[in-house]
């Protein structure tokens, strides 16, 4: 069953969050949902259901593509969101290099992670579409090739963000790769496209298929892009919140670590009259 359950995991508003009594007295739900994103999730679910209906039931077979046209209601939309994710990642990375705010790094990292999933799906659906259309899973088509390289670039970013280093170090280095993401994609795309157009045998001309363009086809195509953008937005928001929470958890830990460090200092002081222990300070820690 292909029911989209993109937002199915959005917790219900009355979540009892039973297993976490030790959090502070405020009865905030322990998850990353908010009423706005719950609404967004429900809208996305409904829109996705409608897309499935349009793609499989309402829209006709294409004269050239046959039923395969139904894959086009998802593949270009995925590719669009993958590129959108790159754009977000690069913008956020520039922002991070200029302003050095932790949030911009979380945003860039989130966009790259979501983008990597979407790029992988773009490649998968592209290959699945290519098998019946071209007879092979992979052709050195310009778009497919440059998307594959984009996937590798995203993996590089994620690997760099996973290094064992101070958060600022990690963020700064990742941001440099993030800034270069879009220029790299452009360069890769340009080179691959020239390469394939200068050397290509004409079989791929079939890529520019000749649709018996029904209105419904065009509508579904555009609509799929809208739906996938909604999915992307939902994923990005939640991924951002997860990253933000991880950052907060790290800072909380840091506060306690500083306390522990001070206690260590107090505990190992010199004995008796030479000692002038620092008074405990209420402020301090991270701004």
């Amino acid at each position: 069953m292909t029911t989209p359950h993109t937002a199915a995991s959005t917790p219900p508003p009355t979540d009892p969050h039973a297993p976490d009594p030790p959090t502070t007295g405020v009865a905030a739900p322990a998850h990353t949902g908010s009423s706005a994103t719950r609404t967004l999730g429900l809208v996305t679910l409904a829109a996705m259901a409608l897309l499935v209906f349009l793609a499989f039931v309402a829209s006709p077979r294409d004269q050239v593509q046959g039923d395969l046209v139904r894959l086009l209601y998802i593949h270009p939309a995925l590719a669009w969101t993958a590129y959108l994710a790159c754009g977000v990642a690069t913008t956020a990375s520039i922002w991070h290099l200029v302003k050095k705010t932790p949030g911009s790094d979380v945003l860039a990292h989130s966009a790259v992670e979501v983008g990597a999933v979407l790029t992988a799906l773009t490649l998968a659906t592209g290959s699945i579409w290519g098998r019946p259309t071209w007879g092979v899973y992979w052709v050195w088509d310009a778009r497919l090739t440059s998307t594959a390289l984009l996937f590798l670039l995203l993996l590089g970013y994620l690997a760099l963000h996973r290094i064992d280093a101070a958060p600022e170090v990690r963020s700064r280095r990742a941001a440099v790769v993030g800034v270069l993401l879009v220029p790299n994609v452009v360069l890769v795309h340009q080179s691959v496209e020239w390469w394939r157009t200068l050397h290509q045998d004409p079989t791929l001309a079939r890529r520019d298929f000749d649709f018996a363009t029904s209105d419904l086809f065009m509508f579904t195509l555009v609509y799929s892009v809208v739906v996938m953008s909604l999915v992307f937005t939902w994923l990005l928001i939640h991924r951002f919140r997860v990253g933000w929470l991880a950052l907060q958890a790290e800072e909380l830990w840091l506060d306690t670590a500083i306390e522990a460090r001070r206690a260590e200092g107090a505990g190992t002081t010199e004995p008796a009259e030479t000692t002038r222990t620092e008074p405990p300070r209420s402020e301090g820690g991270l701004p």
Partner: protein
Amino acid sequence: MEPVIHFRSAVSLLGRFPALAGVDLEVDPGEIVLLRGPNGAGKSTLLKVCSGLLPVAAGTARVLGVDLTEDRHSIRPRVGLLGHATFLYDELTVADNVEFWARAARADLDDAHHAMDRLGLAGRLRDVRVARLSAGQRRRVAIAVLLSRRPELWLLDEPHAGLDADGRDLLDGLVVEAARAGATVLFASHELDRALSVAHRVVTIAGGVITTDEPITGATGPTAHTVGRPDDVVDVGRPDDVA
């Protein structure tokens, strides 16, 4: 007169570890301050923060009149850090190394050659690759680099480690000389006997905070007679302008 080092509740992180957990420290110009404390207390971190190498995460920290939370760059050429690492390229010769770092700091090459001379590096060792040197000889090269930069603030991390007796005497002499010429010295050492004979003040750090801070008592300040050293050290007291 503004202190050379002025820290209030300064916190510094090594990765995710709060190596300095709120340091309060003031050092005046011309002072020689001994920093002591157990391993892992934060001595090296404090020295690196003073040099502008490590960032200050919270609190206030001013060195040579510059706020380190805003600008860690402009003080760097004015500070000399002698760390555990000697900052040398193994494949280059002694002269190559000293000249490279002196040029990088826009120091006078004559100063560099003079410094090599004073540390006994001008002769046979001059064209030896640093990789072939002993630990003590490497440290001498590092001291020569430091000297050629003519820093206003000397930050020495276990400077005696690896040096032979001559080298230690030489270093102590250089430190006292520099302080007399107006430079400020903050140094971490476990060699208390030796260090106390040079320092004006002892600061203890433990668990990333300063726990004790007291002047070295005694009529003339440093008790210069404890080690055989040139007599130029004997009459060194605390500078007059120290409050």
